[in-house]
Every structure is written in structure tokens, then in C-alpha cells.
């Protein structure tokens, strides 16, 4: 299988002397046409990894290739072959949905004769066609998320990075996005890189997953392989076993002082 994303000791450190290791020596391979899920607790380094692979920030050391392009030497090519749904993206709220997608299409050099039709198709797909001329400031969070997914797809990139794609969506819209992701890999041959906290979605969609904690990749494989590696029964248990969690007896410890006093 062709490797489309390959990281080689990819690292990003912050702070004086690099004491904060956001991503630490990441070695990873993602294959063409697969859906890969990167799991990890808050602050584990998922978003930093996505930003590094999209050439938004530069690594402290190590490197990576995306679709064969070097992230340090061929930035523009990397950006062209990727689509990104960021974790907390900035929308231009004073633009309408159509205007925003026009803008995004132009940024990614989508030819002018294709763009209007593609925008209409995406808006229809996300059931926002009737509101295409409404300003985005009036959209609900879920509707904004749909527009951002449409923006990530506007230039039809072979590789899609989706950072928490369904976190703000209602169950119906989340199901639609899940079906879309399946369709994009099964029928369009896209490679999808998902970061998510929602384990059932990752479990359902991803061919392989990686678990990252404190910047280091601590588990890699299919869901079954990871469950087997951690000697647990579910992905949730495997995730907790890998990243650590609160012991059950600690959960009500905060009440003990009061009970003792009473």
C-alpha cells in the first residue's frame, strides 16, 4: 500500500529550552485510501500534529511528507493536496455561506467554471442550499461546522484532516458526516486523518488508530490490535489504560472531609 503521510521523528517543542513537548518524536505512516484516527486526551498533541502536517507551524526537529511532498521544502504543494477542518476555525461571519465557499475555492485555485456548481452541490449535500445567502453570523454552531467541512472539501483534496468533525453536530448531521467520510474513502479513494474524542465514531470509521499522550505516540494499530495490546475489552478501556484515568474510589473523595466533619 502506498504511504501518503509519513512522519520521521516529528517533534514540536515550546517554551524555554523546549520544556513543553507538544509532539515528541512522532513516527507514523498513513496509507492511501485509509481512514486514520488520532486519539488522545486534551493537550496530547493532536492539533499540533495536524498543524505540522498542514504546514501551519514548523517542526522543532524531524520531518514529514504528505502525498510525497516534504512539509518544509514543498509547503505549497502540501497545502494543495490537503483539506483541513480545524478544531476551532475562524469563520468570516460577515460573509454568506456562498461567499465564504467562493473565497475558499479561490484560495485553493478551484477553476472558476467549476466552482459555482461545486458550491451548490456541497450546499445541497449539507442541506444549506436554501440559506446560502444568509450571513454566517446567523448560523447555528452545527450549521457552521457543516460549512467548514464543505470548505475543507471545496478543492477536492486527496487527503483530508478532520479535527473533531462531529463534535458540534446533532445526531442526524453527525450521521450524515459519518456517511460522507465513508463515501469519501470507499468511493472516492480519499485518505482521511481524523482527530476525535468521540470513541464510537473513531471505532466505526477508522481502519487504524493511533493514541497520542503528552506528545508521544503510545499505541498504533487497528481497534482490535489496540484492545489486544492493552489487554482490555473495549476501545474506551484501552484508551483509559493507555492514557491514565481517575480511579473510581477517587471520584467522591471531595465529599469525605465534609462527611468526616459532619
Amino acid at each position, binding site marked *: 500500500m502506498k504511504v501518503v503521510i509519513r512522519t520521521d521523528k516529528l517533534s514540536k517543542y515550546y517554551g524555554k529550552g523546549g520544556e513543553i513537548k507538544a509532539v515528541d518524536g512522532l513516527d507514523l505512516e498513513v496509507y492511501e485510501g485509509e481512514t486514520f484516527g488520532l486519539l488522545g486526551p486534551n493537550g496530547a498533541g493532536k492539533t499540533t500534529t495536524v498543524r505540522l502536517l*498542514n*504546514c501551519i507551524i514548523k517542526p522543532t526537529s524531524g520531518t514529514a511528507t504528505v502525498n510525497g511532498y516534504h512539509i518544509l521544502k514543498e509547503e505549497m504543494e502540501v497545502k494543495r493536496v490537503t483539506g483541513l477542518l480545524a478544531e*476551532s476555525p475562524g469563520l468570516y461571519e460577515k*460573509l454568506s455561506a456562498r461567499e465564504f465557499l467562493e473565497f475558499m475555492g479561490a484560495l485553493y485555485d478551484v477553476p472558476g467554471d467549476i466552482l459555482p456548481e461545486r458550491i451548490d452541490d456541497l450546499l445541497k449535500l449539507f442541506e444549506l442550499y436554501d440559506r446560502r445567502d444568509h450571513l454566517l453570523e446567523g448560523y447555528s454552531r452545527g450549521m457552521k461546522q457543516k460549512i467548514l467541512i464543505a470548505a475543507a472539501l471545496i478543492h477536492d483534496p486527496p487527503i483530508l484532516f478532520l479535527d473533531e468533525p462531529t463534535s458540534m453536530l446533532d445526531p442526524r448531521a453527525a450521521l450524515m458526516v459519518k456517511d460522507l467520510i465513508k463515501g469519501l474513502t470507499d468511493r472516492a479513494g480519499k485518505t482521511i486523518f481524523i482527530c476525535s474524542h468521540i470513541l464510537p465514531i473513531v471505532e466505526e470509521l477508522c481502519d487504524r488508530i493511533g493514541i497520542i499522550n503528552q506528545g508521544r505516540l503510545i499505541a498504533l494499530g487497528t481497534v482490535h490490535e489496540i484492545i489486544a495490546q492493552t489487554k482490555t475489552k473495549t476501545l474506551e478501556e484501552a484508551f483509559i489504560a493507555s492514557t491514565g484515568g481517575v480511579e473510581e474510589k477517587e471520584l467522591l473523595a471531595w465529599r469525605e472531609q465534609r462527611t468526616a466533619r459532619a
Partner: protein
Amino acid sequence: MPKWLVVAKNEYRIHTSRIRKIRPYFPYLVVGLLAVYVAFIAPSFASLFIDDLLALLLSYAALGLVQIILFTIFIYFMIIPITQTLREVQTEQLEIFLAAPIKPSDVLLGEFMGEMPFYAIMVTVVAGFFTAVLNPLGLDFVQMAIIVAIFVVTFLSAFWIGNVIAALLRTKFGGTARGRDIGRALALVIALPLVALVYGFQFGGIFEALSDPSASGTAKLILSLLPSSWGAEVIVGFASNPGNIGAVGFETLTRFGGLVGFFLAVLWLGARAANRAYSLEPTTFTASRAKPDGVFYNTVKYLGGGRSFGTLLVSVFKDYSRRLENLSKIAYIVGLIVMMNVFILGPQLSEELGTIMPLFMIQFMFPILAVFVAGDVTLRGKESLFIYKKTPYGVGRFVKARLIQGWLVVVPVAMGVTALSTIVSAQTNLISLLTNIGLGVLIAAAETAFVLGLFLVMPVFSEKSLRFMLNILIVIFVSIGLFLGSLFSLMAILPELERDLGFLYVLLLQTALSWIVGIVFLSLGSRNLSRIE
């Protein structure tokens, strides 16, 4: 389509989103209106003072005058994009650009070009007035064209520099909540030097010194070195030699050429800086930490009666004082009052009108001070108010806490600036000092109660909303109205009253009325807060 044009088009759409319905006709409308302005309005307006203006342009003072005008407008135009950006530092949209195949210099140029039409309107207004003034002198077409070009190049340089600085500051401050707070704080105080400059030119004798041909000084030298002054020399040269460009050919070539060179240089430097201006690399990883409560907060808690209300008061105070934006607003007001003292008030005014005069003048700043301190009561959104609505007796305790917190800020500031303004005036004695301080504090405290009440009666959830501006106007008009009402009432009732005593009575009556209005609005506001949904 070039990438900068894509960004420019987007920027233009964002700026015109409020007028989307007339967007296709907007350029024609603006060009038409500007044509009317340049052809009719500016000449008509200039003709009102044309003799004086022409005499001034042909006098020794001309160069200094035009230099000052161009320099002030240059600084003003440079500050516009900076303050606009700092007021609402946002970096979320940077991710869109950084993930897309576009060079940072294209983003910078695009953002600048997208705002260009609005800058061009301002430049046209200024240049239109100048050409209307110069036209009667009989300048030829080339001279007029060069003058217009001078305005365009000078002000575009200012806008470009402002845009580059704004982009750099956005990256510097946008990454963290603390940085955004610093940005908002800077947005306000950055205007203070400009105000000082205007006051200095208007009241501080700087203009007289610059226009005196026999005087030579550092200010004159520095001003002549600034690019904005190069164009001034050409304009004044043309005014002295209408229709004869050859007479000032060398000056025109060097000064105008220098100006164009300066513009190209700042364009190049700005494009070079663009890579640093668009970055999502965190500039700091130092999170702000709260220190244990010291003497100050313990005192505040004590003033709040200790116990749970004391804790509530301290929490409200911390939320206020840890926002640099709030502290910069206080600094801004204090700065303005200090400048009023330096440039406008002073011993002479008090000698003529009595020692209560400084309070008469600075009390008009107190409503603004009260708005800065108490006007943000609903700005954090309804959700923050629902916390209090949810708790037992929460609304009453919240209003009480905000009022005491407001007084704890406003009273010392009012006390300080009133004391300062009184002390610098002539004939100050202890009685006049204490009288002024007492009245100043009472008026400021009453206005704080009024502002808090008003902003709860008419809550605003955004500083950009029209309602916010409306509330500020109401505060200003009510405070001026109370002053004028007191003045005219006393003039009608006691027409023979001696002047100094009359001023005192006016302020006493105004103070009493301010308290009545403050208490009424505070109770109305408290009731309205209980009903907000």
C-alpha cells in the same frame, strides 16, 4: 485571479456586508458623492474662509502649518488600522490562510487592498479640501496632479505602515487571552500621544514656534525630516509659484521623489515582514497565575462585610482589575484630564473664574469614567448574568457588588484628578481643595450609580452595538442636562447671587439631582435585571 485579489475581494465583502443590498451600486454611489464633494462642496466650504486660508498659505507660517496638518493626519491614518485590529484581536482566521497555498505577502497585500477603497474615501476628502483651497491661486494641471499624488502617496504609506504593524501585533497578541487583553488595552492608550499632539499644536504654542521663521529648534528639525513634511514643502512651493513648476523644480523632484521612494521602501519592508506577521506559533507559554489575596483584596473583602458578600465583591473586583483593558481606560481618562490641565486649564483660568472652575471643567469627564468602569456590566453576555439570577438573592447582591466595586475605582480616581486640577490652579486653599474634592467625588459616585442602572435598564451585549453608543450618549446628555438644568434654575431663582457662590450652588444642586437620578435608575436596573431572559 491573483491570490492577493482573492483576499482583497473577501476583505471588501466583509467590510460591505452591512450594505449587501446596495453593494453592486456602492462604488458608483461613492464616486458620485465624492465627485460632488470635490467639485462643489469642498470649494463652497473653502470659499467661506478662502481669503484667510490663502493669506496663511502665502505667509511664513504656511510651511509649518501644512507640515503639522500632514503629520497629524499621517499619524491618525497610521493608527486607524492598528486600533481597529487591537480592539478585537482575532487569529482564528489565520488558520484558513496558513493552511491554504498562499504567500503571507499576498495575504497582507490583499487585506490592505481590500480596505483601500475606504482609505481612498478619506484621502479624497482631505485632498479635495486642499485642492479647493489652492485652486484660486491659479496652479496648473501638473502642479495640481502632483499635489493630489502627494496626498495619495503620503496617506497610503501611513495606512500601509499601520496595516503591517497591525498584522504583527495581531500575531504577537492574538495567541493568548492575556495577549488579547493587552491588545485591547493598547488600542485605547495608543491614541493618547495623538491627543497630546493635537492639544500641543492647538494650545501649547508648538504651532507658533514652528511658524516663526526666526526660531530654530529640535521640533522644527525633526518635523522637517519626516516624510509627511516633504510633501508639505512641495505644496507650499507650488502655492508661492502658481503655474511655474520650474521655479521649484529641484525641490519638487527631490521631495516628491523622496516621498515615492519612501512609499516603495515601506511596501518592500512590509512584504518582508509579512512572514512574521502571519503565524500561529505561540509567542508565549506563560499562563497568568493568580497570587494569594494580599492586603488590598483582604481590605476589599472587609469593606464588603467579610463573609460571602465580601468574597463576591472581591471576585467581581478581581474580574474587573485583571483586565488590562479596564486599567487602560482609567489611564486614558487620567491622561486626558492631565492634558486638559497642562494645555487648557491652569492658573489663568482659575484666576479669572475662581477656584471651583477646574471642577466645572473636569466633571464632564466623570460620565465617561463611569461608563468605562460600570458600563461593561452586561457586556460579558446573558450567560454571565444568569449565574447571579440562579443564586438566592443573586441579582440584588450582584448589583450591590458592582456598585461598590465601581465606587472603589471611581472615587479614588475622581478624588485624585480633582485634587490635581485644583492644586495646579491659582488661589488654592485647603477649603477650596476639600470642597472641590468632596463635590467631585459625590458627582462621580452618583454618575456611577446612574450608569450601572442605565446599562441594566438598557442592557448591551456588544461594544459594537448601536445601543452601546446610544447609552453613552444618554449618559453624556443627562449629565450635561443636569448641569445646565441646575445652572438655569439657579439663575432664575437667585439672579443676584455672587459668582463664586453661584458656581458652588450650581454644583450642589447638580450633585443632589445626580443622586436622585442615580438611585432611580439603579432601582429600575435592578428590577430589569430580574426580568432579563
